[in-house]
């Protein structure tokens, strides 16, 4: 399989969550790789760490964070980066990622992904910090397109332009969350396919798939439900353009029993194999 930015195609994986600590190892053949949320492990011993290290020996592992706050005006958190780097080393993670947003500022943590204004100033700020992070972690680093609910007057470029400028400027990979594309396209009224076409697709090193909640007026990116057919279609459409990309199912709220999670992963795999089989055949 072709490597993307030098990173291998790992197949179809799931996020490792506490609810599945007991059963996941018995399902090792139905999961190709796992992603660990670094904030669920860093600073913890006991079961979270033991299970993470065992998983790292069982599957290829990638790390994913939500608290790096790459776009914050606060300095990067050195202690956080130090722990992150040692977790990369301990797990042998193939790459790490976080979101193109800010999640803390003025000394306060939000534990949520707050959008950045799409400006040249933000691009330059994130590029510089991403380079620092890449050097510190010692593994390739990718940025994810986050879901967001507001658009700022201050923005001077489109979301796709913003992503492209950051990724090219920092020379880093894109973790393309296809559900986020769908959610943002609906919430902000744009065409998700045109958006994806405008991205530097050669930089996509991983894809996220997830469910969301549509309350009628706004779609909330909950990671708490099945992936809807429209998102699977958008995924197929994306793969037709990228070829094989390591694809990970995120399910963080209302976490279902393991068999439901695995069936969802199978459904994503079926789409991927159909598209990729057709592409190569």
């Amino acid at each position, binding site marked *: 399989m072709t490597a993307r930015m030098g990173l291998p195609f790992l197949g179809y994986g799931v996020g490792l969550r506490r609810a599945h600590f007991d059963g996941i190892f018995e399902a090792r053949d139905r999961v190709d790789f796992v992603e660990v949320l670094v904030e669920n492990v860093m600073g913890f011993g006991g079961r979270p760490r033991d299970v993470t290290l065992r998983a790292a020996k069982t599957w290829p592992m990638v790390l994913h964070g939500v608290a790096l706050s790459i776009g914050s005006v606060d300095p990067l958190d050195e202690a956080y980066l130090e722990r992150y780097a040692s977790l990369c080393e301990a797990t042998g993670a193939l790459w790490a990622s976080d979101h193109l947003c800010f999640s803390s500022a003025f000394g306060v943590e939000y534990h949520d992904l707050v959008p950045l204004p799409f400006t040249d100033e933000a691009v330059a700020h994130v590029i510089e910090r991403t380079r620092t992070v890449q050097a510190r972690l010692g593994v390739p680093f990718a940025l994810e397109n986050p879901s967001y609910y507001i658009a700022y007057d*201050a923005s001077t470029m489109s979301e796709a332009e913003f992503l492209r400028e950051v990724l090219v400027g920092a020379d880093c990979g894109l973790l393309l969350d296809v559900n986020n594309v769908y959610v943002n396209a609906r919430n902000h009224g744009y065409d998700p396919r045109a958006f994806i076409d405008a991205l530097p697709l050669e930089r996509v090193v991983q894809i996220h798939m997830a469910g969301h909640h549509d309350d009628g007026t706004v779609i*909330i990116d909950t990671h708490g439900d099945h992936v809807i057919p429209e998102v699977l279609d958008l995924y197929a459409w994306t793969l037709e353009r990228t070829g094989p990309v390591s694809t990970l199912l995120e399910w963080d709220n209302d976490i279902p029993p393991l068999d439901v999670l695995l069936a969802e992963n199978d459904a994503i795999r079926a789409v991927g194999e159909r598209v990729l089989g057709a592409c190569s055949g």
Partner: protein
Amino acid sequence: MATLRQVQALMHRVIREELPVAAGAAELGCDPGRLDIYRRFVAGHVRTALDKNFPVLMTLLGPERWGRLTRAFYAEMPPSSWELNEAARPFPGWLSEREQAGDEALVPFHVALASWEWEEFATYVHEAEIPSPDALAGPVVNPTLSILELPCPVAAFMARWVEGCRDLPLPTRDQGPEVALLWRRPDTGRVAFHQAIDDLLFAVSVAHQGLDPADAARAHGLPEEAAREAFGRAARMGLVLTPSAR
């Protein structure tokens, strides 16, 4: 055009409820209903961390009192760690100040229970690695052991709570202070606890000093059989760790 810092400062003030959502939305040029999502979510994350870390206290206080207390805590104690559970760490101390200041919703047991529930979580994720029996040359104390001094008894209450008893009278300060032991079990990774009774403290001190239980019994003027029994019980509980039989 607003700078990155100006945008983040406005978002910060809205999220921290220092600026009304409508005013923030007007300055940022965004939809107020959508902006409010962030204010609600950020507060909701801390609330979730408190609900998760203090489940017994939450149940005892009930939704109205719990809601009022957690909202006040969030307003006064903004989280400063990337680790969400850390947002809950100052809660027992904050609750204690409230109780001492005369908050009528609270009694000393609530404060003691908050300390207990936080310690349970801290023990569960304690960074110390529990050595395997093969790696031991002699008995040692479980490195995740936490010794908790409480103003009123909690261990017996929690033991009954875990069994499913709900209509329990709340212990009071009149029943005297309590020292409790919490540790992570090597076999299950889950947290065990017990009141710090003499037998268990004896076993902990024997393991801590690396003594043979029989020698320690002689030194303390205790019957050897009782000393071995106390030590064996602590070892079965995973409170002290012993080398594998060779």
